[in-house]
């Protein structure tokens, strides 16, 4: 029973990998407590977007992830 976390851009450097699995179910408070302090701080930054299964969350605090879901932490894009 796991949720896949995906780190994009510089957040992958901060996390030390492109992705990791954490226990499901997971809400916003659960995500923050599962992350190292620097990552948790980055996740809360206004410039970091959160997507659940490829759809952007308009309200991060409303995150509700279940087994098999994928959460992405998206820092500002740098463009093509």
């Amino acid at each position, binding site marked *: 029973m796991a949720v896949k976390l*995906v780190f*994009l*851009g*510089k957040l*992958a*450097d901060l996390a030390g990998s492109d992705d990791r699995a954490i226990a499901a179910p997971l809400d916003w408070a659960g995500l923050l407590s599962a992350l190292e302090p620097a990552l948790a701080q980055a996740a809360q930054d206004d410039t970091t977007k959160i*997507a659940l*299964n*490829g759809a952007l969350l308009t309200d991060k605090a409303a995150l509700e992830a279940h087994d098999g879901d*994928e959460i*992405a932490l*998206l*820092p*500002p*894009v*740098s*463009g*093509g």
Partner: protein
Amino acid sequence: MRDVRIVTQPFVPGALTDEFAKAHPGLGGVCTFVGEVRGEDGVEALELIQYPAMTRKGMEELADTALERFALMGLLIVHRVGVMGPGEPIVCVSAAAHHRRAAIDAVDFTMDYLKSASWLWKREKRSDGWHWIEPRAQDHSDLARWATKKL
């Protein structure tokens, strides 16, 4: 015709744009922009990272918006991802239309959105290692010219 491709290997823009133009018999004009990796500032390589769950879908939505907004017969977007070197093509956008203005404007519009609002993360390798590239203010002001909803 909407043709959006994300490629992981080097591509030859001319081959793709020829094929695209041939797919639109009766067109009045084709406008194409090709972006390449700049060979300046000691940049040895560039890496573009996509998020498969969002990057392609975002580009398809952008293409749909351009097709709705401009009087186009077709739009081609080819975007390279992965590690590439100076002089290699990164992006190719080609628009076919009955009249030139629609084709030229559609390419300008599409490039502005690709440069500032596509789900891509970029880093450059210089002699001292890899550096993440932050968004440029110029890219956002380019986007503001179109005064439309953010994709």
